[in-house]
């Protein structure tokens, strides 16, 4: 079931990964059987509301907590049997920061390089490279306590890539950043992909999942409810909505469009004088529609296309809106 993509180089693969937290009073099944396939070199997004199990899954894959059951392979190493190998090959950027305010950015990077096994000289060279790449040179020798939120988050990413990992895990990389810092973080993440790094990130921002990620999985209550590219998800679940304005000729237009093969569903709102069609791809459907209407001598007063958002996908799958959850 998970071996359907033999051609692509699989970087992360999980099979029925589960994690249960037990406390005195209750048992919480935070992750309830996650199957994932992340290809080498892609930006993979894990989208879901707070408490959906995103961070728990990420922390399992980063060797921070042990799975209750299930298996995973990360960067070619078995998560359960070779956690040291996994650690050597991955980078992990936690959500709440990872630096000591009294230490300088450079000091943190050099130490991190050394903890990954570099010599002192190599670690210094690499720290300078990372500082330059992330545009932190001016602040390199200041305590990280003086950094802005965006700078600190870039340094966190720098700490995650010091050892040139094959996979970088980012937990909510842009939460709490202003729009400018967020756009900048997206650029850094794309740069990493350009260098061949696989990026696995969690987010509860729809736009981030939509714009940044090559593929994504939507998780809710510890289960994956949808997986694919943003476009695939939107098509599979919702389809595009085409709205045609009709003046009195509604019944004939409805009959006509219902006979067209690419229309999934159509409805007539007589009061508003509108026909609503659900189609797979709105931008290719509209020229067809216009030609057919014209040939039948019907004149629409308006035509508009609405693309479904990832929120529509989430809404269809879970009955709730992610926008409301995030607010």
């Amino acid at each position, binding site marked *: 079931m998970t071996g359907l993509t033999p051609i692509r180089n699989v970087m992360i693969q999980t099979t029925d990964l589960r994690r249960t937290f037990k406390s005195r009073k209750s048992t919480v099944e935070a992750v309830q059987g996650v199957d994932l396939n992340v290809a080498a070199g892609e930006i993979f997004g894990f989208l879901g509301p707070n408490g959906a199990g995103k961070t728990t899954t990420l922390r399992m894959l980063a060797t921070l907590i042990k799975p209750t059951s299930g298996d995973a392979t990360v960067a070619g190493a078995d998560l359960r049997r070779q956690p040291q190998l996994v650690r050597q090959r991955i980078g992990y950027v*936690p959500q709440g920061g990872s630096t000591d305010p009294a230490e300088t950015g450079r000091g943190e990077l050099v130490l991190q390089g050394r903890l990954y096994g570099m010599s002192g000289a190599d670690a210094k060279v690499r720290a300078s490279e990372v500082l330059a790449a992330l545009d932190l040179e001016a602040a390199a020798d200041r305590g990280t306590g003086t950094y802005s939120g965006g700078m600190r988050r870039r340094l966190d990413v720098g700490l995650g890539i010091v050892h040139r990992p094959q996979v970088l895990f980012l937990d909510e990389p842009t939460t709490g950043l202003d729009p400018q810092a967020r756009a900048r973080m997206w650029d850094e993440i794309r740069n990493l992909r350009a260098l061949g790094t696989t990026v696995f990130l969690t987010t509860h921002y729809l736009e981030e999942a939509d714009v940044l990620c090559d593929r994504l999985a939507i998780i809710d209550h510890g289960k994956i409810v949808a997986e694919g590219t943003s476009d695939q998800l939107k098509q599979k679940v919702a389809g595009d909505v085409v709205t045609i304005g009709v003046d009195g000729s509604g019944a004939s237009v409805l009959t006509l469009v219902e006979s067209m093969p690419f229309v999934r569903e159509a409805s007539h709102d007589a009061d508003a004088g509108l026909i609503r069609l659900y189609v797979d791809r709105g931008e290719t459907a509209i020229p067809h529609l216009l030609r057919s209407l014209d040939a039948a001598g019907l004149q629409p007063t308006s035509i508009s296309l609405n693309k479904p958002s990832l929120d529509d996908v989430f809404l269809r799958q879970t009955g709730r809106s992610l926008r409301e959850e995030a607010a």
Partner: protein
Amino acid sequence: MTAATGTASVTSTTTTIERNPRMRALRDTWLIFRRSLVLTIRQPTWIIFGIMYPVLYLVLFGPLLDGAVRQAGAGVSAYNWFVPGLLIQVALFGSAFVGFGLIAELRYGVVERMRVTPMSRTAMLLGRSLRDVVLLMMQALIMIGLAIPFGLHIDAAGVAVTLGLLALIGLVMAPLSYAAGLALKSEDAFAPLVQGIVMPLLLLSGILLPMALAPDWLRFLSSINPLTHAVDAARALFNGDWGNSEIAIGVGLTAALAALAVWVASRAFSRANA
């Protein structure tokens, strides 16, 4: 650039992994020790309070005790009795609260960041604990130096062994404190717990007043407190009383407890934080 070529270039990292786990642990311990020491020295508050606290005892409590001893007509310097106990007290308090710093590091995310690296888990503990021991040695040397003008007589070899004993006390208390910090993760829970353990240890150790004054039940409780034996050992060492069997008992007991504490705490660091 295709994903495949990109990945290939990424795998050829410049890192040279230390294959021997023991060498790796030593190297990582040194790295963590150095970092912790530098960061501590950058915080002037530690320097001020770490020195001020024992000095206050020496200046504001020492003369009182000295007067009391003179009145009793014991004919010895109260400082030779008081300073070794005070050193043990400093070692106890100085290292029992180091878990506070770890809780801060947990909150900064520093500990988690290091856990994701392949570094030695024991080194996370030992690097920090050795920093605490070094700071403790500095405090102790300053205190001994300051106490000499007050009338402390020292036996050089005895002082050297006492410093070793203090280091062992640091290696009992600091690892336990770190383990408690890891488990509790909150200062609010940590402070009362440590106070609740350290205060009885202190009161039952005979550091402040001789246990000879105590009723039998209290003296019994004191005799099963390992710290009492460390205090007795330190006093014998300061006086050059090498024939005293308390030296071997105090040092031996503390060394055994240090080994146990390091073992327990390094297990706490190794466990995945569930």
